[in-house]
């Protein structure tokens, strides 16, 4: 789960990491008031779940409360990578002596949280990793013990020579690790970590991604979710316990299992079509799930045809058939549906579909080729 910079900042601040004063605003007048309270030059930063905010014009300097009002008015409502800006963060403009990068990610290969530290900060760390990987120091932490003080010190020495700053940075390393663990993060990033001309070490930007698997037992973290920052169809799917990602094509896909769902999208492409979505209805698929899935997919006006691809293992194909029939009774599905199902209770499923005049295929390739053809005819 992505959270906003202002939320990540609050989590870091709660862990004791020094951040600049500042606050979040939803209206230009709120932004103006914050700028007045802070005094001096401020930065107005769009709060969206997308990178490249600066390039898109979503980060601006304001020299006065009046300018803050004007900039906030422009940034609020702005579209960045298809997402509408609903909030801005207003912080004092810091004077910067140096910029570094500090990140902590859950690493698949070492199976541990890994620190990434680099004196090349303030830029996209992906670029640094590709062009000058030697500029990033990586350090895996043994989660049994956590980060030892001498390890934190060693990482801080990668960045600074002045021992006041080294000690401050080492403390930030320990605090970042604590925040990472306490908030069930899969990524926690400070980019840039800066020094000011008067020698302080500060976190100027913050990014945290929370492991979705933590949310089940950490409702407090779930409260950080901003549904307005997501695609409405994806938010609706999550509430219906469906794993759904919207794409740009016109072939709607309803599949059981994530691997098969991806393979289905790929096969749509293979036969010359474009998938409209990724959708996994999961293992124990009740008819309700199928109804919700169809509602979400048919709400997309780009969808020209819908494919069901169900391989019944734990999933009972008759449950899916019942869901399809119930859905088409509840609301009119204006686009053609192609159904492929095989496996558990297949004969019963086909009987249920045939009774209402629908048919099913048992071969995945045949079904995909047919749905792609139908989508093309409708386009």
């Amino acid at each position: 789960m992505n959270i906003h910079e202002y939320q990540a900042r609050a989590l870091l601040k709660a862990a004791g990491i020094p951040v600049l004063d500042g606050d979040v605003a939803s209206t230009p007048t709120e932004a103006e008031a914050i700028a007045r309270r802070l005094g001096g030059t401020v930065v107005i930063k769009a709060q969206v779940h997308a990178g490249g905010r600066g390039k898109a014009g979503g980060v601006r300097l304001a020299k006065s409360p009046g300018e803050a009002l004007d900039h906030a008015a422009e940034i609020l409502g702005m579209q960045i990578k298809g997402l509408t800006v609903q909030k801005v963060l207003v912080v004092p403009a810091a004077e910067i002596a140096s910029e570094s990068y500090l990140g902590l990610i859950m690493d698949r290969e070492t199976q541990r949280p890994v620190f990434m530290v680099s004196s090349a900060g303030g830029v996209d760390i992906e670029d640094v990793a590709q062009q000058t990987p030697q500029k990033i120091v990586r350090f895996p932490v043994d989660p049994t013990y956590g980060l030892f003080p001498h390890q934190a010190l060693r990482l801080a020495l990668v960045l600074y020579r002045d021992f006041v700053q080294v000690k401050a940075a080492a403390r930030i390393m320990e605090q970042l690790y604590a925040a990472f663990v306490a908030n069930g993060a899969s990524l926690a990033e400070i980019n840039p970590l800066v020094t000011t001309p008067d020698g302080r070490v500060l976190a100027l930007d913050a990014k945290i991604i929370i492991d979705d698997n933590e949310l089940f037992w950490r409702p407090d973290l779930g409260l950080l979710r901003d549904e307005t920052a997501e695609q409405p169809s994806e938010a609706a799917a999550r509430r219906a316990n469906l794993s759904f990602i919207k794409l740009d094509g016109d072939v709607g896909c309803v599949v059981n299992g994530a691997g098969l769902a991806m393979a289905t999208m790929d096969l749509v492409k293979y036969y010359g079509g474009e998938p409209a979505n990724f959708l996994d209805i999961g293992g124990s698929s009740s008819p309700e799930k199928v109804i919700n899935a169809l509602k979400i997919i048919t709400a997309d006006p780009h969808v020209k045809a819908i494919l069901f691809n169900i391989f019944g293992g734990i999933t009972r194909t008759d449950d899916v058939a019942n869901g399809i029939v119930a859905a088409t009774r509840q609301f009119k599905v204006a686009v053609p549906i192609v159904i492929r199902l095989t496996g558990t209770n297949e004969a019963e499923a086909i009987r249920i579909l045939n009774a209402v005049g629908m048919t099913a295929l048992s071969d995945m390739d045949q079904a995909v080729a047919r749905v792609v053809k139908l989508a093309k005819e409708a386009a």
Partner: protein
Amino acid sequence: MSVFADEETRLLVQGITGREGSFHARQMLEYGTQIVAGVTPGKGGQRFENKVPVFDTVAEAVQTTGANTSVIYVPPMAAAAAIVEAADAGIPLIVCITEGIPVMHMSRTMPFVRSRAVRLIGPNCPGLITPGSRAKVGIIPGNICAPGRVGLVSRSGTLTYEVVNHLTCAGIGQSTCVGIGGDPIIGTNFIDCLRAFQDDPATDAIVMLGEIGGTDEQNAAQFVKAHVTKPVIGFIAGQTAPKGRRMGHAGAIISGSSGTAEEKLAAFAAADIGIMRRPVDVIELLRKRM
């Protein structure tokens, strides 16, 4: 002979009285798997299906029944603890089916697992099946499998069924099918399975089903090039997946520019792994190479 599970498998089911555990324990019994014990704390002394003794702890179950494999169906918040309990009781093969375990739990669990002589398969996996031994540990439907000489290893569940079904319908049986799981942190990876299949006299060819995210397939391809003499064919799901989005499986995510399908397919090609463009291609590629 086969890989990881065979007629010697004496299975223990952790969470045997739960909804998932009881359902799948019945399916495994029906298939012919030797289930010797179940564990649910607080239900010790009961019998599952009037047959399988239930214990409060794994240690007790192992001591009494000689269980040598455990399959875990306990809910996500207790699953990592269940893995540790099984490892602590000295069970050499642990298969964790549970989906949704926080990744930090697994990060903390793995050092303990690695400190014991234990193989963990999963979590978030369908388990494994050796049709020739009627040994099913997990949730792979037994009726789609057939005994034979092709080993299969996969990160996915239903995609595995799709491919196994193609094989069986074409008269190509399987030595063992292993689902290693869709999570970012898993106990057994592609290389572990490739090594086992390479060393298994009952396996003649290997099918690997990968997906986007991480570098496991790329590492596996290098291993194939250096150490595998049997024919290998592979598939990568998620060629049309957008970057930065988690495609259902927690581990199926392209981070930045790493973990893409192109990168993995290029590694396959460099290792002379036959590339399946579609699941159905498995048949022709195997026939060509076996």
